[in-house]
């Protein structure tokens, strides 16, 4: 391929309109958005879920999901009109000149084939290179992406490597035909913060080296700030504004953009410690595991006081959720006890009485699966109120309406809806209402905001905060997002491999000296400063981030 020296942009989309079929009606998904992208340039697409980021990203490949159609506009890639190519021509382009990196590498790889075979598929099919050449190229890319043991790495199956490694392998695969344009669709959203960095570093390095153009789609501003030269903000299929990254971060023009920026600054005042009182929940020396031979938790102890929020932080697999399962009684600890207001709770939930069950409530990460899709809002909230408090008839109805008002949802409008007729944030609010309907003393919030957009998540955090002071609740807040911790926690418990590595008030937690793991976690949270990743890589070195850094700690 000869490099063209003309000044026309590589990708040029003008006034693109896309409609989607929903409930037998065509609704607008994208209403006239355009973009220009030059070689070696990275464009960040930002917006809430449903803003049309992914749809626009796929349209840049001339592709539409099932049930969507491009109704108007023009998409030009290197002088080719993508909307008027036949299938044969499109196949020549896709994979070879335009590549796509999906959000979940785990779901996008074929689990039945080795990584190297999947890597070689595209170059062989497009006859870009032969098998041996493709394998060599794969090895060199794996090496450049800091994957362990690059010569052997490709021989593994997708399930044999970690999530972060798989995402890098997928980026390598996208590069297999040396494309001119790569579309990254939330490539790090499903990863832990520490793993996220290694993927970000790899992607950025590659894009620079190959002078590839890229569209980087994400809902996380700080991540996009590291990756993109230009940022475009989308809202419900409309372009809100576009500017260079530096300018966008310093002085956003539109109100919507400003509100997105402001979310990260939400923080409530720290509650005063009430250490003299009896703790609401006391976890002492808990050791537990799913099989008798292997313990997941080892000697975990911490207390949660009245009206306090304790955030439990750690990577996936660190034992956060297992701790929650021990407290609720879903998992019986091998050693140790959980006390509520000083009295030990029976180990299994089956042995707990109604009052004990009532006082420990849970709010789940995925509101979709936490609410029975066939029950109406009225029944979902009424059930705990009827069971625990013996309400019925008119009193119960009144109570449900009160609860809906408490979570800021208009009773008349929502009481007879099904969960599927609510937005993600509203479903999460119903989950909260169900928990407080039991009038508990203690609520476990398991990653309650991680599936939500930032603005919606902020609303949920504010609601939880308000309910805490109104109802004297204690929260155990499980999260991997340190921004959330900063916003809502009073105390922080840092967990790693089933151990509590650090425990203390929030104010101390964010000031050094830290446990090295806490340090790594804190250091891995992307900041809004576009230079953050550069500085981090400079100070730590490419070989001391993510998995590598964790491995070194052992």
């Amino acid at each position: 391929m000869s490099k063209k020296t003309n000044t026309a942009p590589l990708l040029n989309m003008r006034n693109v309109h896309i409609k989607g079929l929903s409930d037998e009606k065509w609704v607008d998904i994208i209403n006239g958005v355009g973009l220009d992208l030059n070689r070696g340039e990275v464009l960040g697409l930002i917006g809430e879920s449903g803003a049309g980021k992914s749809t626009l990203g796929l349209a840049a490949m001339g592709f539409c999901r099932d049930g969507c159609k491009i109704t108007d506009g023009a998409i030009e890639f290197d002088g080719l009109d993508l909307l008027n190519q036949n299938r044969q021509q499109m196949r020549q382009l896709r994979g070879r000149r335009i590549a796509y990196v999906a959000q979940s590498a785990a779901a996008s790889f074929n689990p039945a084939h080795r990584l190297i075979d999947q890597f070689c598929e595209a170059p062989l099919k497009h006859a870009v290179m032969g098998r041996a050449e493709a394998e060599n190229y794969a090895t060199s890319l794996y090496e450049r992406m800091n994957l362990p043991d690059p010569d052997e790495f490709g021989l593994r199956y997708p399930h044999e490597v970690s999530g972060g490694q798989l995402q890098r392998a997928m980026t390598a695969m996208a590069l297999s035909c040396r494309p001119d344009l790569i579309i990254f669709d939330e490539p790090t959203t499903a990863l832990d913060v520490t793993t996220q960095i290694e993927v970000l570093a790899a992607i950025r390095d590659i894009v620079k080296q190959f002078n590839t153009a890229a569209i980087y789609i994400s809902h996380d501003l700080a991540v996009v700030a590291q990756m993109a030269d230009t940022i475009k903000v989308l809202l419900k299929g409309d372009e809100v504004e576009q500017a260079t990254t530096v300018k966008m971060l310093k002085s956003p023009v539109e109100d919507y953009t400003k509100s997105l920026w402001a979310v990260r600054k939400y923080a409530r005042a720290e509650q005063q410690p009430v250490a003299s009182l009896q703790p609401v929940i006391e976890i002492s020396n808990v050791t537990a595991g799913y099989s008798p031979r292997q313990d997941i938790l080892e000697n975990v102890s911490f207390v949660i006081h009245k009206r306090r929020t304790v955030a439990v932080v750690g990577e996936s697999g660190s034992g956060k959720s297992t701790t929650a399962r021990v407290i609720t009684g879903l998992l019986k600890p091998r050693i140790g006890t959980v006390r509520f207001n000083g009295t030990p709770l029976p180990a299994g939930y089956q042995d707990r009485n109604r009052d004990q069950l009532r006082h420990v409530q849970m709010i789940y990460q995925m509101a979709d699966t936490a609410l029975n899709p066939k029950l109406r809002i009225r029944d979902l909230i009424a059930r705990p109120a009827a069971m625990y408090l013996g309400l019925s008839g008119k009193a119960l109805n009144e109570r449900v309406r009160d609860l809906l008002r408490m979570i800021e949802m208009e009773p008349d409008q929502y009481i007879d809806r099904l969960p599927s007729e609510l937005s993600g944030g509203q479903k999460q609010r119903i989950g909260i209402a169900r928990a407080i309907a039991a009038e508990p003393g203690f609520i476990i919030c398991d990653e309650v905001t991680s599936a939500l957009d930032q603005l919606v998540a902020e609303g949920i955090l504010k609601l939880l905060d308000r309910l805490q002071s109104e109802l004297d609740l204690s929260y155990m807040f499980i999260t991997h997002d340190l921004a959330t911790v900063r916003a809502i926690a009073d105390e922080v418990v840092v967990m790693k491999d089933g151990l509590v590595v650090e425990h203390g008030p929030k104010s101390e937690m964010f000031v050094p000296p830290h446990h090295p793991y806490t340090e790594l976690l804190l250091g891995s949270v992307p900041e809004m400063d576009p230079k953050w990743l550069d500085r981090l890589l400079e100070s730590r070195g490419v070989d001391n981030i993510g998995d590598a850094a964790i491995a070194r700690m052992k």
Partner: protein
Amino acid sequence: MSLFSVMIWLPVAVISCLAAGWLFQQALILSVNETTAKFLRTAPLTASFGLLTIILYITFAVFAPLIAPYQQYEILAGAFEPWAYPYLLGTDNLGRDVLSRLVYGARNTVGIAFLITALAFVVGTVLGIYSALRGGLVDQLFGRFIDVLMAIPTLIFSLLMLTIFGTSVLSLVLVIATIDSTRVFRIARAVALNIVVLDYIEAAKLRGESTTYLIVREILPNAMAPLAAEFGLRFCFVFLTISSLSFLGLGLQPPLADWGSMVRDNAELISFGDVTPLIPAGCIAVLTIAVNFVVDWLLHRASGLKD
């Protein structure tokens, strides 16, 4: 019938069936409320034809004494009378009115098939969901016992059981329901296994809900779509099983009219070029196809496919 007339009549029959289905659908949409109408509008013509047929069969079954000109057991004339007034479809080997027996047959065969399917579903679904919910030893015990029952070929097993317990309607119902509930158990358990791991089941357990509540309110409504579709298919199988048992002489006993035994009783007419024995067989075929049309539509909806 020559090939030519078949070529003309077949498309005419198909088109008129679909037209009847369309008319029925339009009439139904006009007569029900908005949400049901919206649901009905998604039905393809085949499904509305299926619905129409099922409703016709049910009407015949319910109002059999009013519709049938004679009793099912009445011997009215000589054997094998031709198609002529007053015996519109002629008489059978004993001189009973074929039309009347056909109408009563709808009541006997369809009614009993429905009863068996319903019983098999209640037993199979409850045990299947319970098994999935409890897991562990209970699940293993139920599962292996069902495996043993399923390992024996259905027809041979039911023949054996009916020979042991006699051929009364009650034992027929119980035997076939038991055998069929094993299939329902498998499906109900498989569907429920995917549901019991969801957070709302965990939430309900932590709330201290009873097993009955979990099965009836939390799991069953969410397992309804695949189970309903399976109900339609099972119904067809049961129906065919009864008919084939009757044909073998172990199903519904004379003088009760039954489509399966009606085929057997009049089978010799075939050699004389008379189509009378094919009519009950046709009734079985049409109902089976109609039920499957409706099931296809429900399955399609349940799977959430959008063409």
